[in-house]
């Protein structure tokens, strides 16, 4: 079956800066695909190329079956876009914003009316359709942008950091709505994010760092690949426990503030063996499954949080920021 999004060695260079260094993608129709990485990793630039907003410096990409360079208008007709920053006209009502979009996309007036109503009802915006958008909250604006992006029944919905800057409640609401709409519309979702929990909601993610995809797969599979759970152990004598772990289980434990930390294949099955075989009375034991941050760490050598922090650092030291 034809891929919804396909890229081959896609790259973008701004002067001396290589924002994207050759990305390969293959997203199946109906899939929810996440692009996870810190700011400045090249996520937004990749999105801009896939959505025809900026031309690639090298490589090629097809979206919805159309080439992003040679069949620009066809691509545009078959994608929906929600940008990081709001792109609504605050001085028009929600309904007027949607009508504007419908006209630009050449949709039939009759079809639009029904579709507008059902999408707005799903998103809980129907009652406020006549209000000026500037009176909307951040979460409502984002929901309206999703409605707008789906109005012309696109094949692929692109979301650039869809819940950036929203409070947890609004984020949860957006996610619930997106899930409903995804099923109903059978649309492929392609999103960028630097939130781990947001990436968890995707069928498949690609972790990007420094303009490259470092690893790609289902969140669960990626975490399983890490191959180990993290065990935190606190005993009456951590020193003795540490040598016992080495001697009896062949494990290297690292002392931390309130106990020992070490990694094992299957934590849940290891705990019973640990309790009977350690020989030192245990006070507390906990098993942490790997998170996507562990996956990120394993493939990039730094945690997402640290990468994010150093990206902020870079942004501060470079007054003009990254070219967009």
């Amino acid at each position, binding site marked *: 079956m034809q891929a919804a999004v396909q890229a081959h060695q896609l790259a973008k260079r701004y002067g001396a800066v290589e924002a994207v260094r050759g990305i390969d993608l293959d997203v199946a129709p109906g899939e929810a695909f996440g692009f996870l990485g810190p700011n400045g990793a090249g996520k937004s630039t990749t999105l*801009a190329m896939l959505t025809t907003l900026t031309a690639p410096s090298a490589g090629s990409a097809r979206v919805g079956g159309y080439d992003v360079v040679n069949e620009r*208008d066809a691509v545009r007709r078959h994608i929906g876009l929600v940008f990081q920053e709001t*792109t609504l006209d*605050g001085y028009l009502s929600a309904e007027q914003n949607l*009508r*504007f*979009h419908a006209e630009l996309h050449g949709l039939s007036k009759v079809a639009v009316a029904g579709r507008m109503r059902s999408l707005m009802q799903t998103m809980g915006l129907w009652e406020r359709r006549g209000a000026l958008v500037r009176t909307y909250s951040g979460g409502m604006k984002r929901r309206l942008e999703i409605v707008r992006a789906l109005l012309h029944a696109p094949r692929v919905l692109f979301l650039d950091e869809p819940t950036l800057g929203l409070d947890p409640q609004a984020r949860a609401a957006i996610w619930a709505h997106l899930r409903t709409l995804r099923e109903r519309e059978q649309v492929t979702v392609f999103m960028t994010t630097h939130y781990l929990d947001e990436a968890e909601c995707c069928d498949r993610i690609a972790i990007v760092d420094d303009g490259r995809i470092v690893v790609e797969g289902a969140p669960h599979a990626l975490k399983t690949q890490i191959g180990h759970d993290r065990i935190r152990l606190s005993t009456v004598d951590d020193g003795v426990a540490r040598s016992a772990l080495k001697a009896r289980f062949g494990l290297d434990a690292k002392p931390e503030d309130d106990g020992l930390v070490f990694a094992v294949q299957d934590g849940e099955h290891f705990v019973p063996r640990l309790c009977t075989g350690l020989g030192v009375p245990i006070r507390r034991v906990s098993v942490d499954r790997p998170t996507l941050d562990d996956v990120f760490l394993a493939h990039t050598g730094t945690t997402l949080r640290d990468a994010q922090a150093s990206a902020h650092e870079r942004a501060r030291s470079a007054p003009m920021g990254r070219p967009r």
Partner: protein
Amino acid sequence: MTAIDLVAARHRPRPRPRPALPRGDLRAVKIVWQRELMRAARDKPRLLTALLQPLLYLFVLGAGMATMTVGGGDALRTFMFPGVVLMAVLFTSFSSAGSLVWDREFGFMREMLVAPVSRGAILLGKALGGASAGTVQGAIVLAVGIAAGVPCRLASLPALLAEIYVAAFGVTALGLLLAVRIRAMPSFVGMVQLLLMPLYFLSGALFPLSGLPPWLAWATRLNPLTYAVDPLRRTLLGDTLQVAGIQWHGWTVPVLLEVALVAAFGGAALALAARRFDRDDS
């Protein structure tokens, strides 16, 4: 049908009700134009400023200057009136063109840029929108002036409105040519300030152009606004006042040619703006 079939059916290229692009572009022009008008109508402070400023020129500056002339106070005010109408047009149409910069700053531009329509269509919609907003504003000032006693024949109204529309189109197109290159609203406002006054003073809006020193006379003949004011004056006051009209080496330029010049200027500015806009990477 299986689930796979359903998905496959969805992703087969669907027949589209709009095969020809021009029709889509036409709808784009229309909706962009409508949005400009909606926004202009909603922007009450701008409406008011655009109305007050010309009236200030007419009733304060005009009345003040009239005290310096012997006998012809009313005549001076009447002479200035077309220039005052143009002032309203300038103000409104330039602000309307500025909405392009505003759209860019507040993100709405992206909504237009990712639509499957040509960028020229977007600019044309903006130009027609700014022209319409300017015409409405000019017409309001015209109505106020007529109510205040500026002589005007009813029969010349359609011609006047057409002339105002063409003038507003030219001004908006010039504004758009500036706006496509500018990224921040304050820079646009500064740019307009820089241009507005020289263009206005050199257009014959406030004083007759006959008898100016040669270099000034040249400047006025090169100013497109000159050919926007003169038709208004000749149509409005042709019967009552001695109006010479713009002359090229002693040849009086016909009103129709003047209007055509302004329209051509607007068209050229718009084409140039569209070219720049097209090369723009979001």
